[in-house]
């Protein structure tokens, strides 16, 4: 990993040179663990946090480590074990990890970590190919209610955000969600091809991933999973169309288990200062990430509620006993 270290040293040197004074609350070293391979959402989140924190002088040196595998549960298990009581480490995680912990029967769960803050997220869209006879979400809901087996829904891996949303929508539509015909594909590309080619009835993914095809008219978006209309996105929400479901594919950071209150406060302060910085706002704008900031105990409560909802949905669709 010579190359990466080189890049990190470079960014570190760059940040150091542009920094005049380090604020009093600066931490010495911070390690951010991205429990995925370089390039994906968690990795990009980790690297953006590192860049902004270092640039704003919130930490003297920030290192990003990738521990990939099994929906992030490999990284989670290692983090809870190795970094116990360590106040200078953060783990990037998100809704996908909540599901992966359950489906992989991971011995370590997010309840074994110290919640810090939810940072960003993305809403999901439900689409059909342009040539589909289904024109509205109501049509899709009606088709599901008539014969849910006939409505094949393509999306990402089993038990992931797309699958959870499919289950929630089927339930809200009054269909038998235990018979949901969800077809998982590896990676957005395969799912997209299957939808464009009309091999599945509908598809679910993060909005950003299919934005181009929706705008060019090759895919018709039936609904977006946000609570209210998203600025600049001309897609009705699920709720507006009578499907009472709201789901964000959120990403957050948690700290290690067993840290002291002071250590927790230092991390919370640093993340809060990062969130307020202009550099972070620029990152959100550049990457089209939504600002879903929620910190401390509020986030802890949210995490528990989200865990309950995901558990119930995964049980309904039969992935978890």
């Amino acid at each position, binding site marked *: 990993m010579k190359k990466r270290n080189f890049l990190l040293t470079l960014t570190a040197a760059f940040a150091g040179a542009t920094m005049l004074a380090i604020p009093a609350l600066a931490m010495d070293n911070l390690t951010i663990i991205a429990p995925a391979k370089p*390039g994906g959402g968690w990795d990009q989140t980790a690297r953006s946090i590192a860049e902004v924190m270092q640039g704003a002088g919130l930490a003297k040196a920030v290192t990003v480590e990738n521990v990939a595998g099994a929906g992030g549960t490999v990284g989670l298990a290692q983090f809870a074990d190795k970094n116990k009581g360590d106040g200078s480490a953060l783990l990037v995680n998100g809704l996908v990890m909540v599901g992966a912990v359950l489906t992989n029967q991971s011995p370590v769960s997010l309840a074994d970590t110290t919640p810090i803050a939810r940072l960003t997220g993305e809403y999901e869209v439900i689409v059909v190919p342009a040539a589909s006879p289904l024109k509205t979400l109501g049509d899709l809901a009606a088709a599901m209610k008539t014969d849910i087996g006939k409505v094949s829904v393509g999306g990402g891996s*089993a038990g992931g955000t797309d699958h959870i949303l499919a289950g929630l929508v089927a339930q809200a539509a009054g269909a038998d969600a235990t018979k949901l015909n969800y077809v998982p594909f590896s990676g957005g*590309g395969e799912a997209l*091809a299957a939808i464009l080619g009309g091999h*599945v009835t509908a598809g679910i993914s993060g909005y950003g991933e299919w934005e181009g095809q929706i705008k060019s008219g*090759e895919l018709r978006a039936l609904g977006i999973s946000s609570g209210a209309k998203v600025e600049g996105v001309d897609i009705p929400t699920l709720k507006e169309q009578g499907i009472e479901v709201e789901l964000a594919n959120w990403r957050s950071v948690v700290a290690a288990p067993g840290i002291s209150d002071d250590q927790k406060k230092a991390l919370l302060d640093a993340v809060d200062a990062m969130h307020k910085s202009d550099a972070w706002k620029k990152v959100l704008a550049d990457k089209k990430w939504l600002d879903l900031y929620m910190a401390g105990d509020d986030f802890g409560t949210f995490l528990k509620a989200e865990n309950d909802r995901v558990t119930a949905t995964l049980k309904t669709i039969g992935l978890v006993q």
Partner: protein
Amino acid sequence: MSALEQLLGGFATALTLQNLGWSLLGVSLGTFIGILPGIGPALTIALLLPITGYLDPTAAFIMFGGLYYGAMYGSSTTSILLNTPGESGSIITAIEGNLMARSGRGAPALATAAIGSFVAGTIGTLLLTFCAPLVVKLAIAFGPAEYFALMILAFTTASAMLGSHIYKGLTALAIGIAMGLIGIDELTGQARLAFGYPQLLDGVDLVVVAVGLFAVGEAMHVASRRDLREVTVETVKGSLWMSREDWRRSWKPWLRGTALGFPFGALPAGGTEIPTFLSYFFEKKLSKRPREFGTGAIEGVAGPEAANNSAVAGVLVPLLSLGLPTSATAAILLVAFQQYGLQPGPQLFEASGPLVWTLIASLFIGNAMLLVLNLPLVGVWVKLLSIPQPLLYGGILVFSTLGVYSVNRSAFDLGLLFITGFIGYLMRRFEFPVAPCIIGLILGPLAEQNLRRALSISQGDWSVFVTHPIALILFILAATMLVLPVLWRPKVN
């Protein structure tokens, strides 16, 4: 403006000194990471993503494109000389290529690989320029039923690699399929054969297994067989260059490999590996000297090497024209486009035409650079073979271990490398072929997932495999490939 005019405009931009520099940097870096087992183009481009904040998009994509092509060139070198494939697309090259190298014909093997890659890369890029809309239609015409049929067709190619004892070959194939089952089942999210190791939940890494079976297994076998104090030096026999005979035997495999690779690259579940199997199969069946396969036949290097490079060109078609990533590297390239606020797809050619055409032009240039870079190096590379065997195999072990460890810095991967290495040793010791293992490992999971997806969509109705015309045609082809050689045997001279 016609495609040709726009392409010429692209060349004008790509040929500036600065952009040539980025292209050279990309192809050199690509060749280097191609040589290292484990580190592939996807990982490298992912690690280079932060530079998108400093470079203009044209320069960045010229470099990334060169890097992707270069990786395919580089990995053939170690495949041929050291039996250590750097990328999964070069695994098949190792079969005949390494045998050629060991019989003193390493230089022609490297040359046919380099020239074949050049030919395939150039034709592939031409197809990318002029046939993109057609290929895109093909890519989305393939659904799960068609993929399953395609995988069955690809499975028949294993028959060319089973070796002289059919049952041993089939055993190797079964071992590969069993290894492919390890990890979380894509369709239900349940773990299979993971034995409680979280590191196994994502399955075993193809490159780790390939390096283990080929390189580590070979090193253990050599160590167990020979008295290493007897230092033997493999001499380079004959010319360093391809003979007239080599050219005559290479050009057709290059073209056939190119034709196979391109459409596979464009398919969302195609990849660079499967066309290399098909190419090897066809070359063996079409060869006038099928007996030479297994002792170092140049056709077995020329075809697959052309196929993997042309597949890379194929990958770019759905990426640029649909925003559809069909390989891990393409998925990272898509992220890079998004970093610049660009959305690949039909609008890309209209909104950022000059960028796309400059990228395509730079691929032609990068391809030529790779040939110029690689051919003179052939003479240097083959000197590796004059290293005394104990040192050479010791070096291969160090090299494979470092390459595999560097990817995840995981001790578990090292354990896996040496366990598969030991399996590879046992297979050599008891004369089982190792290539079918790799075929089973790649095709097994793809065939299973697509079968189950197809049946899930059809709600358990098996007739989808005959009512979908493309699937039916592929099944008929597969049956023909199995039956034809039995009914009609060409006379072997």
